[in-house]
């Protein structure tokens, strides 16, 4: 499978100025996050635990507990409609239909007490007027679509009877049963073995090619990103640190965090040397530095970093939130 070239396909979904915090906290967990997803393309949101990538997805799906979150701003454009992120009724109408989501741990996302055929059929009935038989036929069709062997027999099995990879296929079948135009996948292969991960990534690419759906893939794995991303948003502590096409982010990384992250990945090829790290750890919401949130771990941090750097253009469609980008032109080693 080779990465897709950048294109100018039509926009499916765009998000602007998403900012929210958990109630009782004085800092935003996600601040000014925005991105664009185009038809048939894959946007990867990459970052480490606590960077806000999963809560961003949950906010879009209207799945954050309403009384625990204060959405301060955020506009979504989807299917020609423009609405605020906290228009929960509208989001609920799309959820599971036009916009579907799959999660990391398929065992906890499937109900252990129901047969998988019934669970998929339920998703179908929720969004279209049809009878049981028709919904069940659709469930069978979807299981075949995700290449589950002996699909007819599997319809009547329970989640515990399936392997991890098969369960993730069931989750995908369920998510795609209503032909969503946007699929949000939160670490869909993290709990799987590498060989199974390869199968699932291939499956997602195949289904995307068939349907033209846009995928937002949330992951911490830069290898997965390099393989399937059209565009990449690198998140750190609730901010977008860098945003651009996969070719730009991998070929011309600008933000010190992107560079640190790429240096810390152990690789299969190239010289086997000591890994460069990102020192320290992600700040908690209470210890968040003001200004650039990466400044507490950045080796280039300077007084100016107490001011928040704008997510500024460093090339066509390529943005980075660093006062010093591009590093090679603004910084030098002092002898």
């Amino acid at each position, binding site marked *: *499978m*080779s*990465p897709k070239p950048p294109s100018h396909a039509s926009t499916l979904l765009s998000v602007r100025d998403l900012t929210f915090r958990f109630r009782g906290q004085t800092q935003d967990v996600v601040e000014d996050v925005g991105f664009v997803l185009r038809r048939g393309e894959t946007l990867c949101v990459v970052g*480490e*635990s606590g960077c806000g990538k999963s809560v961003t997805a949950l906010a879009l799906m209207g799945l954050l507990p309403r009384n625990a979150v204060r959405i301060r701003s955020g506009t979504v454009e989807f299917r020609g409609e423009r609405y605020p992120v906290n228009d929960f009724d509208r989001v609920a109408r799309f959820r599971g239909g036009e916009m579907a989501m799959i999660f990391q741990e398929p065992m906890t996302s499937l109900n252990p007490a129901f047969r998988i055929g019934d669970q998929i059929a339920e998703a179908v009935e929720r969004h279209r007027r049809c009878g049981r038989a028709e919904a069940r036929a659709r469930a069978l069709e979807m299981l075949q679509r995700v290449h589950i062997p002996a699909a007819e027999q599997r319809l009547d099995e329970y989640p515990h009877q399936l392997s*991890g990879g*098969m369960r993730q296929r069931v989750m995908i079948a369920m998510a795609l049963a209503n032909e969503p135009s946007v699929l949000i996948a939160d670490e869909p292969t993290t709990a799987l073995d*590498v*060989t*199974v*991960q*390869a199968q699932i990534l291939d499956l997602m690419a195949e289904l995307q090619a068939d349907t033209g759906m846009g995928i937002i893939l949330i992951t*911490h*794995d*830069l*290898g*997965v*990103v*390099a*393989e399937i991303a059209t565009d990449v948003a690198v998140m750190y502590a609730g901010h977008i640190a860098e945003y651009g096409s996969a*070719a730009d*982010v*991998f*070929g*011309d*990384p*600008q933000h010190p965090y992107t*560079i*640190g992250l*790429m*240096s*810390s*990945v*152990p*690789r*299969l*090829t*190239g010289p*086997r040397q*000591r*890994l*460069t*790290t*990102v*020192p320290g*750890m*992600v700040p908690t919401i209470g210890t968040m530095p003001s200004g650039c949130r990466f400044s507490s771990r950045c*080796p*280039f941090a*300077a007084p100016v970093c107490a001011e928040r750097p704008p997510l500024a253009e460093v090339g066509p469609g390529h943005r980075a939130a660093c006062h*010093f980008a*591009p*590093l*090679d*032109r*603004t*910084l*030098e*080693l*002092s002898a």
Partner: protein
Amino acid sequence: MSEIVLEAVDLKKHFHVGGGLLRQRATVQAVDGVSLQVRRGETFAIVGESGCGKSTLARLLMRLIEPTSGSVRFDGRDVAGLTGRHLAGLRRDMQFVFQDPFSSLNPRMSVGRLVGEPLETHAPEMPADERRAKVAELLRTVGLRPEHADRYPHEFSGGQRQRIGIARALASGPRLLIGDEPVSALDVSVQAQVINLLHDLRDELGLTLVIIAHDLAVIRHMSDRVAVMYLGRIVESGPAEQVFAAPRHPYTMVLLSAIPEPYYSRATRRLPLEGETPSPANPPPGCRFHTRCPFARPDCASRVPELRSAGPDQLAACHYWEEIAAEGPVASPPPPPRPAPEVAQRFALYEAALAGAQVTRRAETREIQREER
């Protein structure tokens, strides 16, 4: 260096599962005839996917569970018969680092007590103030601060907790550490810190490391020699660098080719792997990998391949590795693309700044940037 510190000889562990009123009892062959030798001072990695038996093997090596047959020798002594003082000695010399730093530390014990507990067990005669000093020293060794001793595990991040786990394992002064997925629950940037820490500790304290993991890239960075397991058996072993550059067993090839590498637009040559790992309760006859092997020949289903030489110090359990290698469909992953000079310079700056070099803003850019804004 080539002295053998830990050795397993034809180790087997079969679990009996199920069995009820009308149900057949099944035998899961979790580990089925594993022999390996770990040399003093090296990092030896055991790699494989879920269900291959690698964690069971680690527990057998530690004698946390008893083997069905076969033996484990630590420093030339069979560990099976050890009791009392000798078993306590084994526990002191061989320590375990667990995968999940969230569930392997007692949340109600302070870090000081967690790290001090092995000292109480293995050196009960040590006076309390000396023990406190030793705990402080251990915390410093793993990159934590002595004042952390008064805190509780929930106050720490995943990477720090893993450091606590390592300090605890080091407390008894072991000669060998077995880590079961010691870094796989950690974020990439933190994972790199812990990998470097384990490496430094090995050299400073003269430890031998046995690392169990599923991530081949991590293994490549951490280990000197590697053994690849599939369905309870070792299918390939050898020096890590060599196994990664020239894998001989088809399973190793498939595994390597399945790993997505963080390089954009590099042509990937992924070997197809159909289906799922068969159940270890009912492994296929002959070569256990033949049902999924892209290179399987008819007789692979009947003849069991033994580990045999496949290069200097390298062993592979495949009847046809020479033929497959000669066909040359896949060897190692392709080399990484070269970064553009300005990008290479950014990485170099980052590395230099981390190492403590003075990086300053170029005088001429200050004005330009201000104007642009």
